[in-house]
C-alpha cells in the first residue's frame, strides 16, 4: 500500500459551518420566493373571485389580503352563483363530466389489450406496428382536424358527445399504449409462464393477472387522460362547438372572455370553477401522476 499525499484542497473543501448554514438559509429563501412567485397569479384569481364586482375594480386583490376585514372588501359568493347559473358554467360543468368520463375510461381498456399483445405475444409485424404507434405520439393533433371534421360531417357526428369520445380515444391511444407497454412488459416473465403452463388462455391471463398488477400504470394514464380531456379546448371547439347544450368548460370560459372580457368578477369565478376538479384529482393522485410522467419521459 502506497501512501498518497492528500490533495491540498481537501482540508479547504468543506465550507465552514457558518457559511454552510448561510447557504442553507439562502436555498430556503430562494425556494420560498419561487413558490410564492409561482402561486401568486392563481392566488390573485381565487381571491378576486370571492370579491364583489365593485370592490374588485376599485382596489387590487392584494388590498383585500392586506386589509381583509375592512368593509370595502365586500367578500361574496355571488360571483359563483352568477357564473354557474346565468353564465352557463353549471351546464358546461355537466357537459365536461359527460365528455371526460367515457373519454378517459374507453381508451384505457383498448390500450391495455393492445399493450399486453405488444409486450407478450409473438406475431408477424409486431415491431413495425409498435414503432408506428409510438411514432404517432408526436404527430400533431392538428394533422387530424380537417379530415376528421369532414368524416364527421358525412356521418353526422359533429356536435355529438359520441364524436368527441371517439376522437379523444383515438388521439389518446398512442400515449396510453406506450405508457402501459412500458409497465406491462416489465412484469416478471415466470409469472406469466406458470399461468400458461396451468392452461390459462391469453384472455384469462390478461384479465386475472395483468390488469390487477397494472393498476398503478392504469391509474397514471387515467390521470393523464383525464386532465388532458378535461382541459382540452381545441378538440372540444372543433368537434363539439360552443352551443350551450354541449360546450365544455374551457370552451365556455373562452366565450366568456369574449363577451365578459372586462367583468372580472365573472371571469375569475368561471376560471376557478374550471380548475376545481382537475386540481382535486391532481392533488389526490399526484403520486401516480408523477410516476406516470417518469415512466413516460425518462425511460422513453
Amino acid at each position, binding site marked *: 500500500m502506497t501512501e498518497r499525499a492528500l490533495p491540498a484542497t481537501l482540508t479547504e473543501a468543506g465550507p465552514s459551518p457558518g457559511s454552510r448554514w448561510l447557504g442553507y438559509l439562502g436555498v430556503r429563501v430562494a*425556494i420560498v420566493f419561487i413558490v410564492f412567485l409561482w402561486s*401568486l397569479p392563481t392566488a390573485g384569481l381565487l381571491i378576486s373571485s370571492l370579491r364583489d364586482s365593485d370592490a374588485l375594480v376599485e382596489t387590487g386583490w392584494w388590498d383585500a389580503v392586506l386589509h381583509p376585514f375592512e368593509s370595502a372588501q365586500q367578500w361574496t359568493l355571488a360571483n359563483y352563483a352568477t357564473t354557474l347559473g346565468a353564465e352557463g358554467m353549471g351546464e358546461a360543468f355537466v357537459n365536461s363530466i359527460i365528455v371526460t*368520463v367515457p373519454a378517459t375510461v374507453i381508451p384505457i*381498456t383498448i390500450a391495455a389489450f*393492445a399493450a399486453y399483445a405488444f409486450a407478450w405475444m409473438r406475431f408477424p409485424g409486431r415491431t413495425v406496428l409498435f414503432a408506428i404507434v409510438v411514432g404517432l405520439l408526436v404527430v400533431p393533433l392538428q394533422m*387530424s382536424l380537417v379530415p376528421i371534421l369532414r368524416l364527421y360531417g358525412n356521418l353526422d357526428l359533429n356536435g355529438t358527445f359520441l364524436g368527441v369520445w371517439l376522437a379523444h380515444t383515438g388521439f389518446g391511444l398512442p400515449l396510453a399504449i406506450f405508457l402501459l407497454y412500458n409497465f406491462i412488459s416489465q412484469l416478471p416473465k415466470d409469472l406469466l409462464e406458470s399461468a400458461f403452463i396451468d392452461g390459462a388462455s391469453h384472455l384469462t391471463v390478461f384479465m386475472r393477472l395483468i390488469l390487477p398488477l397494472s393498476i398503478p400504470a392504469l391509474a397514471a394514464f387515467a390521470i393523464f387522460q383525464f386532465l388532458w380531456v378535461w382541459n382540452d379546448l381545441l378538440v372540444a371547439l372543433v368537434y363539439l362547438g360552443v352551443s350551450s347544450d354541449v360546450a365544455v368548460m374551457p370552451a365556455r370560459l373562452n366565450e366568456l372572455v369574449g363577451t365578459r372580457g372586462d367583468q372580472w368578477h365573472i371571469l375569475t369565478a368561471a376560471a376557478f370553477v374550471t380548475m376545481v376538479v382537475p386540481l382535486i384529482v391532481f392533488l389526490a393522485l399526484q403520486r401516480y401522476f*408523477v410516476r406516470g410522467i417518469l415512466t413516460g419521459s425518462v425511460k422513453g
Partner: protein
Amino acid sequence: MTSPAVPIERPTDWRGLAARLAAPVGAVLAVAVMVLSLGFLADPDGPQNALIGLYNALGLTGQAEALAQEGLDPILSKAIIAVVGLAIGVGGIWLIYIGAHSVLELLGPRWLSRLVPWVFIGPALLLVGVFLVFPSITTIITSFTEGDGFIANFGFVFTDADMLIALRNNALWLVLVTGGSVIIGLVIASLVDRVRAEALAKTFIFLPLAISMAGAAVIWRFVYAWQPPQEAQIGLLNAGWTALGNEPVPWLQTPGVNTFLLILIMVWLQTGFAMVVLSAAIKGIPSEVIEAARCDGAGESRIFFRVIVPMIRGSIIVVATTIAVAVLKVFDIVYVTTGGRFETEVVANRMFNEMFLFRDLGRASALAVILFLAVIPIMIINIRNLRRQGIGA
C-alpha cells in the same frame, strides 16, 4: 376398482356444444346491439325518442304525447346519453374482446394462437388508423390539392406578412419556453433537493400543470390587466409598473412585449414538469459520485455544471423534446388571450382561424403539415441521443 358400466351419455355433448356456442352467439348479439346504439348516441334526441317509444309500447300514449310536446329535460337527456355511452364504451368493448376470443376458441387452438394477437390489438389499430394515420395522409394530400394548390398554399405560408410573424413567434416560443422551462426547472430541482419541505414546495410549482391553458390564460390576462391611468390598477403587473412611477401599459395589446408575456404563461405551466423529471434524474445520481467530486475539492457550482448536468444530459434532452413538441402544438393560450391579434400569432392558432374564420382548408392543411415537419428534426435529435446512450433501437 370397477370400471363404469354405463357409457357416458350422448346428450352431455350437446349441452357442452350449446355452452360453447353461447358465448360467440352472445358476442355477435352484443356487437349488433352496440352498433345499433351508436346511432342512438349520435342523435341528441335519441333518449327522448327512445322514451316515447317505450311509453307507446307500454300503452301510455298520453305520457308519450306529453313528452313529445314538452321535450325531455336536457340535463336528463344528456345524463342518459352519458350512462349509455359509458355502458357501451366499457361493457360493449369487453364483450367484443371476449366474444372474438370465444369465436377463435371454437375454431381450435391453432387459429386461436395465430389470430388472438390481432383481436387484442385490432380495436387499437383501427382507432389509431381512423383518427391519426388516415387523417395525416389525407391532410398532406389536401395541402397539395385543395384551394389554389400546393404553390399557393405553401407559398402563402412563407410570404404572407402575418404568417411570417407567426413563424417568427413560433421560433421564439420554441426557444424561450423550452429553454426557460428546462433551466428554471433544473435550478429548482437542484435547490429543492436540499430542504425538508421538498414535496410541498414541488407541489406548488407542479400545480399549474393541472390547470387548463384556457384557465391559465384567464389567470394571466388578469395579471396583465390594464385600466386607464386615472383608475386603480387591478392587474398585478400594471400595479407594480405604476408604483414605479410609470404610465400603465395595455400589455397584451403592445406588440413586441405581448408575445413574451404569452411565452411566460407557457413557461409557468411547463416548469413543474421539467422540475419533476429532472429532480428524479438528479436523485438517480449515486451519492458517491458527488461525494468524490466534493473530496476532490469541487465547489457547489462546479459540481452542478461538471457532474450533475452531464450525468442527467439524457433526461434534459427528453424533457426539452417533450416541451418543444407541446409548444409547437399550443393553441389555447394565444386563442384565449389575444386571438392572434397585435402580432402574437402562432402557427397552430392561425391554422384554427384558417379553418373556421376563413374557411380555407387548403391553407389550414398546409399549416398542419408545417407543424408536423417542425416536429421531425426535434424527434431525430432525440432518437440519435437515445441511440448514443444505447437505449432503444
